[in-house]
């Protein structure tokens, strides 16, 4: 489904500030895979997601989605296939527009926009049902501006907006890190439900090792721009937080350094 082949990325190439962000990274995701991504500071986790989404270009390598090279498409053209949620709950929604308008824009993801009515009556019922499933009382607030909602509510709406059209690939960039623990675990719960209901292929960056182990069927660990651990199904099920730390220290010969890492809940 998603094939990342030998991707190398430098920042500030050919200057004194040259920095290797990703070094010959190869990842292979099958349809329906849910991969969690962990790694220490500056490991290249966000760079990897930015390359897949089209924010950054690559210096070498290829990214194939369903066999097609997506590196030639600008960010807004990849939107048809790829949804992404950010850490900052403010980033995924337009605050001065209503819940209904935000969801309607998500329905038009990647499609050609015309002079048809932006909000259709049929969609409204569907929005209400989907919102009701979030169990946050949002189904009665279709006409409220999103800016009036809490961070957790906004992130829940972003989650809905990202998945409402069943994209080929869902990218989650520490999407619960900025929320309080209770809201965060609610969003994780919703994420799991929506991903499995729609059988979405998903990549999720997280700083929470336990979360990385409990969610999904794949796990990779990045360090210094390289994949240093790639676990599948059974290997992943057997892995523990201590095991992850051991693997890291063994392969790198140094301590795992991440000022934000959460070992357990």
């Amino acid at each position, binding site marked *: 489904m998603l094939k990342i082949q030998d991707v190398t990325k430098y920042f500030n190439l050919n200057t004194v500030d040259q920095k290797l962000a990703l070094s010959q990274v190869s990842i292979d995701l099958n349809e329906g895979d849910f991969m969690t991504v962990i790694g220490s500071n500056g490991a290249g986790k966000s760079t990897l997601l930015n390359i897949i989404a089209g924010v950054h270009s690559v210096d070498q390598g290829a990214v194939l989605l369903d066999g097609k090279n997506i590196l030639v498409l600008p*960010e807004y053209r990849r939107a048809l296939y790829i949804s992404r949620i950010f850490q900052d709950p403010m*980033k*995924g929604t337009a*605050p001065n527009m209503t819940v209904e308008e935000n969801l*309607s824009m998500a329905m038009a993801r990647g*499609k050609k926009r*015309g002079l048809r*009515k932006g909000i259709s009556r049929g969609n409204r019922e569907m929005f209400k049902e989907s919102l009701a499933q979030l169990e946050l009382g949002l189904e009665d607030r279709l006409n409220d501006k999103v800016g009036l909602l809490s961070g957790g509510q906004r992130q829940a709406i972003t989650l809905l907006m990202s998945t409402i059209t069943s994209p080929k690939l869902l990218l989650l960039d520490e999407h619960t890190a900025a929320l309080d623990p209770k809201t965060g675990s609610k969003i994780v719960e919703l994420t799991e439900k929506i991903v499995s209901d729609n059988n979405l292929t998903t990549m999720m960056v997280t700083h929470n090792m336990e979360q990385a182990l409990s969610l999904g069927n794949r796990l990779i660990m990045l360090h210094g721009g390289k994949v240093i651990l790639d676990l599948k199904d059974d290997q992943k099920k057997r892995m523990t937080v201590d095991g992850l730390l051991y693997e890291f220290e063994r392969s790198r010969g140094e301590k795992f350094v991440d000022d934000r890492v959460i070992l357990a809940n």
Partner: protein
Amino acid sequence: MKVGFLIASVEQGFVYAVMALGVYLTFRILDFPDLTVDGSFPLGAAIAAKMIVNGSSPLISTFMPLIFGALAGIITGLLHTKGKITGLLAGILTMIALYSINLRIMDKPNIPLLREETIITMVSGLGLPKWLPSLALFVVFALIIKLFLDWFLFTEIGLAIRATGDNPHMIRSLGANTDNMKILGLAISNALVAFSGGLVAQYQGFADVGMGIGMIIAGLAAVIIGEVVFGAGGIKRATIAVVGGSILYRLAIAAALLSGLRPSDLKLITALLVVFALSTPRVKALLSQNKTAVDG
């Protein structure tokens, strides 16, 4: 005399409301301070006036500015999105370029339209009472454009334009080309501004190359007064507030003139008005901060 003043102010309120709705589209919806307005307003006046003295039909002369205003907006949009020039500077560059272009179109700094057939004399020919034609014409135009924006801003493209001003990052991730949305918004905005310029030229009986100076501030004044007085809940409320704000602004100008100020003082008054309206929330916040500090 006083009633005449009042009617004239309301007429002006409606005809400049067309321009103010254009300013609303860039300033509020796109979050783009577009100074092209100071050039596209006289551009519309120049085109309408030149066409009329050359004997074109007043109807075509009235609507032609829409097209050229849109072109002016597109140029600012291209400078900003493709040329990567900041929005403010892109608008100023187009505005300055338009000054020369407007003089080329007009051949001279001023074209009088006295005794020419204009859209206003056309409507007057229908046998209406003397005070009615301009007013009726401008009310109709302003309302049509208000309704157009109310419809347009709720279409798929309209939602994407609004999101471009609200959260460009997000709408790009949903597959909208924000560059194109900005260019389209600027085109529509400046089309309206130029259209308003053409109407004003016919209304006041001349086009002048300097008639656009400070137009963006007059537009802002209308938008902001409207928001303060009538509120700015949804789009439909906001567009009617802009029309109302435009009328109130013209009445305030008339009052300033009646109180003995010179016409040349008006730009200063307008600037002060906008400064006051824009800084009031900030001053209020500062005052209440100090108050709590003292109280606490």
